[in-house]
């Protein structure tokens, strides 16, 4: 019997995200069998080692091949509770598939992500009760934030029989998974359905529109002291903060947006249109820059992606750049905006300077007509909440400090994982860190 019936989160129709096609759609039966049968079933396979959550990949692929699709999903989900979204958003090219022995042999690696999606999506559609929670323990854990780290931790803790309460500041839960993934990989409703499935695993309550603060000043706020007092453990899955800004003239005002904010609007805002925007400029060289550039290109906008260093110094993945270029994104290396030019308040152009060692060189400026600028030069840290917990420390780059083996913070009752700890990595890293934290929380609750 389900203790708390999870709420279903609906998004309004008419979102720009709905127009995107999956780059890697769900395999049908024949496709899955053909691909599964290609797997060599390596011993002690390198793909397992390359997966942060160490899914036994050859085993689940073999199970697909024998028709044991439910067993395949069990193999996946017991190692990675967010196996559905990871199947769609993982950069498999640099993780499991990148280490496939076929890659070293000069052959096409196994499409592990697509096989994983096949197994999990088909299984959960038929048997959502695949994993069963243990009897209630009476222990309560608070999780701050409802992004992949917190959701994964809550799911694993609930399966152990604990009660979990998730505190989410926003109205739409799910964090990066529901608000920040490129829609040709994973759309918001897909992320929300996966999240609702995790919430259904056991005693998990999700409270949205609730802020965790040092001192609560009214409804919609919970004090850190109260959380610590009323729970046996606290997990911080805070994610990252607002998009960073360049602080150049003309940056303030409409037409200049942070990349993650723009992605969130494409995914959730009904009726968002880019009418009047012919050319857009994305500033940055990381994967968020590549995502928003790629999304804008697919929405029919001419996109220049401006990076202050050279292509080979970019933080973004090569396969993502290749994909973005195929859809029309143009990379402009060694340039940086120094001013945004406006007419009647509207962005009309960007003044670009050539750079040396990533710094603008005076006298090299050129003016490029542009109607929209997306800043993807990093995100602020969500330091406020973390600092409100006594004993929780941040490193010099604003990341929550944890013990790597346990993911426990300086406060003996507080654990943390995900982007707020690693500075911004993949969903699969958030799950892997949540796994470490959950193991240690288990030890703590058992009185070890």
């Amino acid at each position: 019997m389900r203790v708390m019936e999870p709420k279903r989160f609906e998004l309004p129709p008419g979102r720009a995200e709905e127009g995107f096609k999956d780059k890697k759609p769900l395999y049908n039966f024949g496709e899955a069998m053909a691909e599964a049968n290609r797997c060599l079933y390596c011993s002690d396979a390198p793909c397992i080692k390359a997966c942060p959550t160490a899914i036994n990949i050859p085993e689940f692929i073999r199970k697909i091949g024998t028709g044991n699709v439910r067993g395949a999903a069990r193999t996946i989900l017991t190692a990675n509770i967010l196996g559905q979204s990871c199947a769609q958003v993982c950069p498999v090219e640099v993780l499991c598939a990148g280490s496939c022995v076929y890659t070293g042999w000069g052959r096409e690696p196994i499409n592990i992500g697509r096989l994983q999606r096949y197994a999990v999506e088909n299984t959960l559609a038929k048997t959502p009760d695949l994993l069963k929670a243990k009897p209630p323990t009476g222990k309560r854990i608070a999780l701050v934030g409802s992004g992949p780290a917190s959701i994964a931790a809550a799911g694993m803790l609930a399966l152990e029989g604990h009660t979990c309460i998730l505190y989410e500041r926003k109205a739409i839960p799910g964090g990066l998974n529901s608000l920040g993934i490129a829609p040709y990989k994973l759309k918001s409703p897909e992320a929300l359905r996966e999240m609702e499935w995790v919430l259904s695993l056991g005693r998990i309550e999700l409270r949205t529109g609730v802020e965790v603060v040092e001192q609560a000043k009214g409804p919609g706020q919970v004090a850190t002291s109260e959380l610590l007092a009323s729970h046996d453990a606290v997990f911080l899955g805070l994610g990252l903060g607002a998009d960073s800004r360049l602080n150049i003239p003309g940056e303030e005002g409409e037409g200049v947006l942070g990349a993650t904010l723009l992605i969130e609007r494409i995914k959730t805002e009904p009726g968002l249109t880019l009418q009047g925007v012919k050319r857009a400029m994305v500033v940055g060289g990381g994967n968020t820059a590549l995502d928003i550039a790629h999304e804008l290109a697919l929405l029919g906008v001419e996109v220049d992606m401006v990076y202050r260093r050279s292509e080979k110094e970019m933080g973004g993945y090569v396969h993502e750049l290749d994909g973005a270029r195929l859809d029309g994104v143009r990379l402009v290396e060694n340039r940086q905006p120094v001013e945004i030019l406006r007419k009647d308040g509207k962005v009309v152009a960007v003044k670009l300077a050539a750079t040396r060692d990533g710094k603008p060189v005076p006298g090299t400026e050129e003016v490029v007509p542009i109607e929209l600028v997306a800043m993807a030069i990093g995100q602020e840290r969500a330091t406020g909440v973390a600092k409100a917990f006594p004993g929780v420390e941040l490193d010099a780059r604003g990341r929550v400090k944890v013990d790597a083996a346990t993911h426990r913070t300086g406060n003996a009752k507080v654990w943390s994982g995900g982007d707020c700890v690693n500075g911004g990595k993949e969903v699969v890293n958030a799950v892997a860190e949540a796994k470490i934290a959950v193991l240690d929380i288990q030890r703590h609750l058992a009185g070890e």
Partner: protein
Amino acid sequence: MADLSIDFCGVRSPNPFWLASAPPTNTGDQVMRAFDAGWGGAVWKTLGNPIVNVTSRFGGIDYGNTRLMGLNNIELITDRPLEVNLREMREVKRRYPKHTLIASLMVETKEEWKEIIRKAEDTGADLLELNFGCPHGMCERGMGSAVGAEPKVLEEISRWAMEFARVPVIVKLTPNVGDILEPGEAAVRAGIPALSLINTVKSIMGVDLDRMVPLPRVGNASTNGGYCGPAVKPIALHLLSQLTRHPQVGKLAISGIGGVSNWKDAAEFIALGSTSVQVCTAVMHYGYRIVEDMIEGLSNFLDEKGMKSVMELRGRAVPAYQEWGDLDLSYKLVAKINEDKCIGCQLCYVACMDGSHQCIHLPGRTEEESRKAGHTHIPTEIPNRVVTAQAGTPGARVPFVHEEECVGCNLCQLVCPVPDCITMEEVPSGKPPETWNDRVAKGTDFVPGGLDATLAARGRSR
């Protein structure tokens, strides 16, 4: 260009590639299209009194992404009126006089055999094939493999055929017997000049686990069918060589059948003593067009080996098929892993650990780790080589062989997905050649560690 034509009991055939008696030779139109594609001969779908067939008729077995590793069927002999078949056979022989036309026959009584042999020969058929092999349906009526499995019956009907026939007679054998030499010798006693084998193997292709009915399914039931296709080739090669190395039976002309899919298969059958080969499953899978490659491939092969004709290839490998007791116990092979080609899948390692002699080791392990993994013998020398596995593969994944422990079984080479990565290298054993039969002769055939009763029986003690 080697001469691909053959002489089969005095019948000249443009090449050794014949279609077996089966669905691909059901009609005159089919056989003519096959001859146009290049087939040298065709054994017509078995003639007899027309029958009634069921639906479905075929079952397949796949392996991984490969379809039809094996096929089975529960179809019977021709379901067309005899006169229609005979008219079409006559027409085919008139239009293709140089191609080999073989009439496959299956009836019951002596009078029936007499009539059908006369009628078949009247079409101009070059050869007759007595179907004593079909292992499904017809055998329940006392025909097909019911005859092939009873040497006395086989001999009697063969004598009738030899009495009535003017053209050479082939007896088609069933593999569903304990000893293939019994029907082979029976055919020799009856004076039969040629054999063909194997007909299909009795089989059930699988079970429909939802309906709990074996496959192929006819309504709510099934029956055993005849198994053929690439999976049966090794069985066919063995039965063929049992016959070809027999002093009397080996003198007969033999048409080899069983999983022949390409020129290489054909060359193997011929090397083991076939004069022609018959093909069915590969044509049912891919069509008559496969014969182009068979003709070209066999011709190129013979040229490369300096053989001027198919007949020069015939039987070349027969002498090397010997009893186990005559094999050299001193011959030694060890596996060698080519570190430049290894992709690091470690399938050889797991196969050797669990399926053979635990002599393939992973690099970088301590002795303790090796023992924990299941090794009982630790190599004293670890190859100090630069591991050069290709990009993307951690070099440390390339396993190595402990040569003193390697028994040369081939398993690692068989499971390795990379061609020529694992090779089996001949090494001197330092011992003179010796067979088990030599040891029996010398009285050194008791291997220490056996039963006391065996020792006592030999009048010795430990």
